[in-house]
Each structure stands twice: as C-alpha cells, then as structure tokens.
C-alpha cells in the first residue's frame, strides 16, 4: 500500500479550485459505492479525507456527518416508496440512536486522535465482517412477542415468495445495540449502518430488506442529532463540506439508478475488501500515533 503521508503531500499544495473539483469527484464515487453496497458512503469518506487528502480528523468527522445526512436524504424517500421501511420501528429505535449520538459527540473530546482512529478501524472491520456473513433465514420471524406487540413493531414485507409477516424479537437487545450505534455515530461522524443492520437483522430477527431500508431512514436522523454539536465546535468547514455534500448526493442518486443493473455480489465483495483494508490502515495509523 502507498504510504498515506506521501499521497497527502502530493495533494496538499493545490489551490481551492482543483481541490474542490477533486473532492467533488471523489465524493461522487464514494456516494455511488455507498448506495450500491448499502454500507453508506460515510464509512470510506473519513479515511479518504484523512489518509489521501491529509485533512485533520476533526474536519473529516464534521464533513463526513454532512455526507451521511446527504446519503440518507438522497435515498430514504426512494426506499419509503417501495414499502420496506417500517416508520414506527425507525422512530422507536431513533430514540436510542438520538440519545446515543448526543452522548457520543459529547464524549468525543475525551478521546485523542489515535484512539479515535483505532475505534474507527475496528468499526470498518465489523462492517466488512457483516457484509461477508449472509443473513440467515429466521424461523422465529413472526413469533408472538409482548414488547413488540405493545410497541406495534410488526408489519408485512413484499418478497419474491409473496408478502411475509414479521414481528420484532429481542427488543431490549436491539434497543441497546441502537444506543451503541448512535454513540459510535456521534463519536466518529459516521452513519454506523452496519451496526444498525446488526441490531435489526440479527438481534431483532427482522427481514433483511426491512433492516437495511429502515437503517437508511434512521442514519440521517442519527447524524442530525450530533451535527449541531459539531457545528458549534467549528468542525464543519463549508469549503470541505460543500463539494462533499454535492458529490455524495449526486453519487447516491446515480447509485440508486444503477442498482438494478449491476451485479451486486461482485461489487459487494470488492467493497468489503476495500473497507477491510481501509480499516486495517486506520488501526495501524492509530497505533503509530499519527492520527491526523
């Protein structure tokens, strides 16, 4: 792998115009990959900014939060139309991610950049691992559950084998995992979609399509919870965030259009390897102590 510091030095002496264009096109690619893989563009944006562009981690976190909201805004309305997103489920779990995100943003100042870099790498490795392990068929998908009944966490989902009924299981576990997802989102400026899918798909035994689309709906809400805190700390730089927002929006719209035409499996494995490599890179950078 190319030493990241060298790349950063190559790119840095540029003036605003070429840098803005480069950021814009890099963000389009991040947005396309994020939309196609379902992992979100935010997970690769912070490493891209810090490792390739040499941006300070704090500016990168603020910029990434903006990209997360842009991705979620670009695709959430499209998914709602398809009838997979469960709004009650999203709103109930957003209770956990919102408070988690505020806690994460508040605690961010207690961690130094090296530790943040290592946590970030670990989260990326978890994302990669999640996309490698396929979702297992769930027998207890529609089992009676008192908590789910009271909170109305059930619904129907169209599949190739017809419409299936589902009901959330293990609600307290799912809720706790969502708090963790929110905390990491607030701490690192990411959407933490992989942990949200883990909570819904694995813990709460919900259909995979419902989990991923509901996660996408929630990601923007979670990011908005900590965005105000980062804005007030001066982490959101307009000149960095503007091309990234426009690029990621464009990219996720292109990605959503391409989605039915490309072979998802190949793309998913390419992205998984990429995310894992970046994760290792972030961890090694953190361990070396240069978490800029």
């Amino acid at each position: 792998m190319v030493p990241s510091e060298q790349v950063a030095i190559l790119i840095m002496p540029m003036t605003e115009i070429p840098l803005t264009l480069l950021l814009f096109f890099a963000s389009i690619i991040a947005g396309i990959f994020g939309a196609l893989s379902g992992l979100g563009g935010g997970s690769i944006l912070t490493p891209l900014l810090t490792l390739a562009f040499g941006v300070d981690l704090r500016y990168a976190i603020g910029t990434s939060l903006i990209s997360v909201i842009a991705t979620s805004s670009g695709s959430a309305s499209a998914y709602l139309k398809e009838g997979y997103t469960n709004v009650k489920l999203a709103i109930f779990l957003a209770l956990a991610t919102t408070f988690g995100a505020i806690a994460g943003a508040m605690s961010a100042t207690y961690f130094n950049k090296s530790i943040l870099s290592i946590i970030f790498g670990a989260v990326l490795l978890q994302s990669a691992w999640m996309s490698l392990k396929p979702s297992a068929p769930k027998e207890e998908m529609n089992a009676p559950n008192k908590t789910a009944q009271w909170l109305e966490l059930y619904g129907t989902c169209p599949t190739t084998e017809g419409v299936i009924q589902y009901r959330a299981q293990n609600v307290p576990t799912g809720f706790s995992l969502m708090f963790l997802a929110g905390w990491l989102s607030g701490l690192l400026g990411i959407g933490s979609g992989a942990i949200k899918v883990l909570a819904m798909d694995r813990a709460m035994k919900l259909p995979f399509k419902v989990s991923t689309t509901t996660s996408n709906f929630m990601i923007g809400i979670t990011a908005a919870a900590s965005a105000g805190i980062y804005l007030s700390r001066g982490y959101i730089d307009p000149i960095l965030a503007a091309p990234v927002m426009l690029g990621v929006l464009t990219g996720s719209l292109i990605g959503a259009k391409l989605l039915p035409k490309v072979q998802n499996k190949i793309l998913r494995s390419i992205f998984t390897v990429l995310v894992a490599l970046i994760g290792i890179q972030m961890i090694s950078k953190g361990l070396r102590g240069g978490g800029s």
Partner: protein
Amino acid sequence: MKLLRTFTAIAALIVLIGTLAFLYHHGDMIPHYKTFSGEPASLRSCTIIIEQFNQHGSLGVIQLGLLMLIFNPILRVILSLVSFVHERNWKYVIISGIVASTLLYSLLSSAG
C-alpha cells in the same frame, strides 16, 4: 415525502451557489485543512448563520445550505409525528415528539 426531496434540492442549490461564488473570488487560495483551527463564530452558530447569512459572504451562504440539509432528517421526524397525530396513535405521537424535540434542542441549543 415530496416535500423532503424539494427541501434537499433547495439546500443543494444554495450550497452550489455559495461554492461557485467562493471559488470565483478565492479560487487561487491555498487551503488549510491539515491543521485544525476551527471555524469562526459566525459559521458555528445556527442563529448567526440564519440571521446574517448575507453578511459573511459565500461561506455564510454555504453554511445556510448545510444547515438546511441537517434540518432535513428532523423535518422527516416532524412529518412522521404529524401522521401519527392523524392516526390518533398517541403512543407514537409521544415517542416521535421526544425524538423531534431532542433533535431540535441539540441543533439549536448547542450552537447558540
């Protein structure tokens, strides 16, 4: 949901206009992102961004568009709240009410 799309499109347009204006005037500047200095107070506070966006040049305009983007998911929760009121689902009126007010409080108070 059409409202949310329109809202996102307007936010993107404002950011685009601000970016083009900035590049037109300051395109030959060397950026400074390697070291963190933090944004000036005028670009940190919600109230200042909204009230004086025309006094801080193109950067203030971009920040206004970004603020609209951040507000987009909050609007999504508020729209869900409205639909729960229509359904008279009070349990979810309360839950979405807590989420919406927490989000609003976090955005407005921290950047005061």
